[in-house]
């Protein structure tokens, strides 16, 4: 039974006798010595992660101007910051895009530019008060000119993250990168074996007040992050650190095509090995960390599960989906995660970093709720016509004309003998065939590449698809491609007419 305290470990750090290893090295040590042996031997295990953390931002104070201003609206290099706090305090969110340059440049880029010593243009407006008479302010500042510049990141260092893929027929531009059509690739994020929270999944040593490596400086955990979900292993952290002490090596702006700006943060957390339980948990391997591959093709909050996967598989370069090898891309940098765990190890070893115990532990039993929405989103099945005219592909153009005429319906779904949707014939297709004197099977005149949608899709997604492809109707099908109904631009106009 090993029992150590953080105070004892800190004394060892100060006198230089501390034994510190990275979470990668710990795997082999526990394999060799067992948890108890490793707990006796090792005092601190360092972790690291380096990836996109959108939920980050800068809390700053500009100092007072002459005459003073109570800022209501504020921009840094045309990126809007929130200034609904005291006169010259503001919060610049990393994922806020520029009003002028769009998603190429955002709050994250302002933060990196500040860190690199660049001048930033400031534009502020107000309504003027007796104590703050000024209404407009234009100036330029550098990081040095700010009184305080703290990164206050509401959600960083996800314990693990779901991987992404795309079953749809077009490229998706997401915060998980470019997802190629028809399961063309898988992207993932997280440092696996080095992931801070995955090395202390009971949150024994990580909580409010834990001193950490943050962006190359010493920062702190200030509680659990937003959307903290420990029940299923998706814990998150809220962090604070002084930007003025950080390094652009570990705080990097990025922009995802079609999505927007985000900040790559480098975070490292030291885990004191107080007992054998912590020794065992810091020996976690990539193959122990299971996450999910989700299908982003649906465009809905509830992304369908494609399969479960562990980080060893993801990091191997390819995973199997439906019997096919699909290449994987990491969106976070393992090389930098390792660099961070080594740098933190160096700090501890050379007495430059002392550990702290949390004054409050992270919540271990909370769950993320979906948004409460007071206006129900209508689904395709709520507005579709469940009456649909179908025709077998072997029937003739004359049969199709007759069906259109008899049912006064513009669209006829073409089905196979098994009842699966194989095409669509419109009154226009029939007229064209007649004009060209073609009266053979509908198969020869139908549109073969038919867009379709699912009954549980929100109507606005279906409407967006109709608009994107410039078509007036889509058959609604179940998972076996059996036709359940049809949604037309008419159905959508009726929905709008009913609402307004």
């Amino acid at each position, binding site marked *: 039974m090993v029992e150590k305290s953080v105070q004892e470990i800190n004394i060892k750090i100060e006198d230089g006798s501390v034994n510190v290893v990275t979470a990668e090295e710990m795997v082999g040590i526990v394999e060799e010595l067992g948890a108890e042996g490793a707990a006796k031997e090792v005092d601190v295990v360092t972790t690291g992660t*380096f*990836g*996109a953390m959108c939920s980050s931002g800068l809390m700053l104070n500009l100092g007072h101007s002459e005459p003073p201003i109570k800022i209501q609206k504020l921009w840094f290099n045309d990126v809007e910051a929130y200034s609904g706090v005291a006169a010259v305090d503001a919060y610049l969110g990393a994922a806020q895009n520029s009003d002028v340059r769009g998603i190429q440049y955002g709050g994250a880029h302002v933060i990196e530019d500040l860190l690199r010593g660049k001048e930033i243009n400031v534009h502020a407006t107000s309504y003027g008060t007796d104590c703050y008479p000024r209404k407009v302010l234009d100036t330029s500042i550098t990081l040095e000119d700010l009184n305080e510049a703290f990164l206050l990141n509401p959600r960083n260092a996800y314990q693990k993250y779901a991987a992404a893929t795309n079953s749809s027929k077009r490229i998706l*531009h997401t915060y998980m*990168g*470019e997802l*190629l059509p028809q399961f063309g*690739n*898988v*992207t993932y994020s997280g440092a696996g074996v080095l992931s801070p929270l995955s090395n202390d999944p009971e949150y024994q040593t990580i909580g409010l007040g834990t001193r950490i490596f943050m962006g190359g400086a010493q920062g702190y955990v200030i509680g659990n992050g937003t959307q903290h979900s420990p029940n299923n292993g998706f814990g998150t952290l809220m962090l604070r650190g002084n930007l003025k002490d950080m390094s652009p090596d570990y705080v*990097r702006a*990025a*922009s*995802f*095509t079609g999505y927007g700006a*985000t900040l*790559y943060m480098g975070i490292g957390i030291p885990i004191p090995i107080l007992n054998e339980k912590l020794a065992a948990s810091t020996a976690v391997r990539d193959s122990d960390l299971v996450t999910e591959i989700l299908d982003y093709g649906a465009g809905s909050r509830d992304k369908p599960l494609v399969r479960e996967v562990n980080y060893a598989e993801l990091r191997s*370069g390819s995973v199997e989906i439906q019997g096919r090898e*699909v*290449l*994987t*891309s*990491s*969106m*976070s*940098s*393992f*090389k*930098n995660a*390792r660099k961070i765990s080594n740098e933190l190890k160096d700090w501890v070893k050379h007495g430059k970093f002392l550990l702290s115990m949390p004054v409050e532990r992270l919540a271990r039993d909370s769950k993320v709720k979906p948004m409460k929405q007071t206006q129900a989103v209508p689904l395709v099945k709520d507005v579709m016509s469940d009456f649909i005219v179908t025709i077998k592909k072997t029937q003739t153009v004359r049969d199709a004309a007759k069906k259109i005429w008899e049912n006064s319906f513009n669209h006829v779904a073409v089905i196979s003998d098994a009842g699966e949707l194989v095409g669509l014939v419109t009154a226009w297709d029939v007229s064209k065939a007649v004009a060209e004197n073609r009266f053979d099977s509908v198969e020869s005149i139908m549109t073969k590449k038919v867009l379709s949608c699912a009954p549980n899709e929100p109507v606005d997604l279906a409407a967006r698809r109709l608009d994107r492809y410039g078509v007036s109707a889509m058959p609604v099908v179940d998972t076996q491609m059996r036709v359940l109904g049809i949604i037309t631009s008419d159905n959508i106009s009726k929905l709008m007419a009913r609402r307004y």
Partner: protein
Amino acid sequence: MKIKIIIPTERIHNPIIAESMVETKVLLNIMVANIDSTYGELIADVNDHQFNRIKKALESKGAVVVVLGQPITRDEEECVECGACISVCPMKVYSFDENWSLCVDEQKCIQCGMCIKMCPHGALKLGE
């Protein structure tokens, strides 16, 4: 080797790629082709020792032929070596070595541009 063939507007209606291949019996493996009624640009693979022959034939028919010496450039300062580019590249230009450093095999690149859109750090660009 990878080459770029540019077909100017005044030659776009002539089958100059086919003519050049038939005439020289040099095979071009066309990897990317962007051709419309006004302009054409192709990336093709050709045997090193046959390059001069096909180049002469193409140029005699009005095409412009450029060797893709450095088809893609990586800004090592901007790149964080995440590896986002790896899975979108159809030619397997990108890979990790055993230290999780990013390796770029430029010779395989066909300038499709997928990796450029994928890179969150804007570290990749076509050409030099």
